[in-house]
């Protein structure tokens, strides 16, 4: 009953008026930050850190505020994905695939409620997982070396082809473009810059946020201008908010499966929320009987990535707290905050500073319920922000996006780069090349390459090292299956869909 005693202690820390107020404020700010393109969870948290210092918050309060913002942003990211087809942050990328088509079909409210519930399921169960299993799970991270991570990224990469059901060649082209962009910057294994053309601004590579906002939001502006505002995706009307009970019941298992996948991806420090939501989506698509409807507004295509990325957000706290290893950009910022507050994460944190850890867990549980209320019954509040007329909304989003990106580096280079990405996005969309695989290419490329090269250094170039552990072999088999299966399955599945078949 240690657990109950610990949790009681945690709630005693977290359930004061001031911390509750901070949790509500953090969730609200986080949801807005998440839903505004250009302000993702990591820069949201980074921007608010100085605020925590100037308010003179103590360690627990500062953590409550920051994690509420973090969870809030993870919830909020879906809102603009669904309503605008512009992901609010990179983990919300996959939600655009089915969320926006649902909104186009007039089911925006259903998509929002469903994804809100999915977010809650993912985040809540992940928090419970964090509570019960953190010290044990920390050991899992030790099992993953370069060869295992390489196989994991390979698995993601092999399933990329199944992403687009319409034109695989164009999806592959987009993914390769993304891979190319990922190569820009300082190469960790030689210490030499690649493709930077001597430009100092490119040394750190291309920021995901710059690419996402450029490809999705800025290119939208170009379409808007071209069509004099007629063909814009913006301006989806939101009807009455009702609870789509059937969709929720139908996707309960989807949410649970996605939560497990997302949580595991989150626990592995080299994977993270974006990979979690991607694998959750692809996994759900792979086992579903109606694969063709994914990408056209399948409710399960909304539930899976949202449960996945929120579970990953909770999972990412496991290595952050128990190993001091951040699993994502946001947890990196949170880790820095912990260090500044003189809390040293590591294997002994749970026993050294129980009040901090259990206070944090209790406040995460509270934040989840606050967010469920904010994002389901009160979702209208946030939707209002995005439902002003398009001629006002788009410039507004641009203003926030450019402001947010500028606040990170304080240089105009990223803004120019973002505009260039907008232009690329415009051309790609004109050519009917999907932009989601570009982002995934950027996301997967660096990690996959880095891990392959680390493995080769460790093994002196011996390729068999890549298959040297059970986990690696298992992931390789899954990767090959993920690549080959759709080719056969497609032919197999087409037959029954013929109207004149006996099935």
């Amino acid at each position, binding site marked *: 009953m240690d657990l109950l005693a610990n949790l009681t202690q945690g709630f005693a820390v977290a359930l004061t008026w001031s911390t509750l107020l901070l949790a509500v404020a953090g969730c609200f700010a986080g949801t807005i930050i998440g839903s*505004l393109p250009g*302000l993702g969870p990591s820069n949201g948290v*980074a*921007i608010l*850190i*100085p*605020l925590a*210092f100037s308010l003179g918050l103590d360690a627990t309060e500062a953590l409550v505020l920051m994690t509420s913002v973090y969870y809030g942003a993870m919830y909020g990211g879906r809102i603009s994905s669904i309503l605008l087809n512009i992901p609010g942050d990179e983990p919300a990328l996959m939600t655009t695939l089915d969320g926006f088509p649902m909104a186009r079909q007039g089911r925006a409210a259903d998509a929002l409620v469903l994804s809100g519930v999915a977010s809650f399921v993912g985040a809540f169960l992940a928090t419970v997982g964090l509570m019960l299993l953190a010290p044990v799970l920390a050991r899992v*991270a*030790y099992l993953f*070396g*370069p060869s295992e991570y390489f196989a994991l990224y390979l698995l993601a990469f092999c399933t990329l082809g199944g992403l687009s059901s319409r034109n695989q060649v164009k999806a592959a082209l987009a993914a390769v473009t993304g891979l190319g962009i990922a190569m820009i910057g*300082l*190469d*960790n*294994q*030689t*210490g*030499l810059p690649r493709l930077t053309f*001597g430009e*100092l*601004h490119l*040394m*750190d590579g291309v920021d995901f946020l710059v690419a996402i906002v450029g490809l999705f939001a800025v290119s939208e502006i170009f379409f808007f201008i071209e069509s004099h505002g007629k063909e814009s995706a913006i301006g989806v009307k939101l009807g009455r908010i009702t609870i789509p009970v059937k969709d929720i019941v139908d996707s309960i298992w989807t949410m649970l499966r996605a939560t497990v996948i997302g949580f595991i991806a989150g626990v592995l*420090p*080299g994977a993270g929320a974006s990979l979690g939501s991607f694998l959750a989506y692809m996994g759900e698509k792979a086992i579903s009987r109606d694969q063709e409807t994914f990408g056209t507004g399948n409710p399960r295509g909304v539930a899976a990535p949202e449960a996945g990325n929120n579970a990953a957000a909770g999972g990412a706290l496991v290595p952050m707290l128990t*190993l*001091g*290893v*951040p699993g994502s950009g946001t947890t990196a*910022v949170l*880790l*820095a905050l912990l*260090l*500044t507050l*003189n809390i*040293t994460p*590591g*294997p*002994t*944190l749970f026993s*050294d500073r129980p009040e901090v850890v259990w206070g944090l867990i209790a406040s995460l549980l509270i934040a989840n319920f606050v967010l469920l209320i904010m994002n389901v019954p009160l979702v209208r509040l946030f939707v209002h*922000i995005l*439902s*002003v007329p398009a001629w*006002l909304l788009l410039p*507004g989003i641009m203003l*926030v996006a450019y*402001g*947010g990106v*500028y*606040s*990170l*580096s*304080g*240089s105009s*280079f990223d803004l120019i780069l973002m505009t260039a990405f907008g232009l690329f996005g415009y051309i790609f969309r004109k050519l009917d090349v999907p932009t989601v695989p570009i982002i995934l290419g950027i996301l997967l490329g660096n990690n996959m390459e880095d891990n392959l090269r680390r493995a080769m*250094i*460790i093994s*002196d170039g011996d390729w068999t090292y890549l298959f040297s552990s059970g986990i690696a072999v298992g992931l390789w088999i899954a990767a090959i299956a993920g690549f080959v299966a759709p080719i056969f399955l497609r032919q197999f599945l087409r037959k029954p869909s013929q109207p004149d078949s006996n099935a």
Partner: protein
Amino acid sequence: MTSRFTRTLAVAILSSTAMVGSAFAAECIAPANPGGGWDFTCRSIGKIMHDIGVVDKPVQVTNMSGGGGGLAFSHVVNERNDDGELIVAASSATATRLAQNAYGGMTADQVSFLGAIGADPGVLVVAADSEFANLNDLLDAAKSDPSSVTFAGGSATGGFDHLKVLMALREVGFTDVRSVKYVGLDGGGDALTSVIGGHTQAMTGDISEVVGFLKSGDVRVVAVFTENRIPGFDDIPTAMEQGVNVVAVNWRGLYVPKGISQADYDRWSDALAQVAASDEWAETMAANGLAPFTKVGAEFQDYLAGVINDVQMLSREIGVIQ
């Protein structure tokens, strides 16, 4: 509806511009996002300067990330060269990158280094159950069969974590630096995880990165690269005790623009020296695992010139610079 939107927007803009300093107070540029080492330097030194009264207004902190500190460096050189109210956070990484010409051709003499007032000591770490009992075991193994030991660190190849290993190996007479196996991971924590998981044999990093794991008993520190043992970690032997004459610390300090008056330079180095001597700084260092390391003004510039020279020599050998 519209007014709510405008309000939100106003809040968002306010919070994003809140970090840009006012023109009147002194400003400290942290060339990285909030939370990192440079940010810590600006915030803690700036706060103590104000607390002990060597500056009359709170020091404003500006975060300017990019290019591993290169963007802030070029900003200072090109746009703020005569700004007497500007200080910039620096560390060993700044010196290493300048030495390796990683700041797009800019050199250390384009700014004035002010001093360092604390340091995160470098360490070599192995897993608790490692076969290497001490520093010499580890270095001998790497010397006799370089492919048998992989070092993991939180910086890229050629970064300071990598160079520490090479310096130590050079001290024991091993000069084939290119055959030393080093993998650059995404941070000290990642590197430790890979050592504990048995994927690599030794981790090279700073002591603040290993404190948590040291307490849990997952790792052993085989050497710390300081002149004397560190207070609070008295059972960790230095490399020098073991006959390996290497001192490598990740110092935390400041530089100022080149074009400011001598009076301004003296004012800032005096302020920094006062911070170094203050009780507040001693507390901050203890809380953050920093060891005392005070070199201000000319003494620091001499030290730095030596470090840069050393780094350049090694970097040329491993091929990071031509």
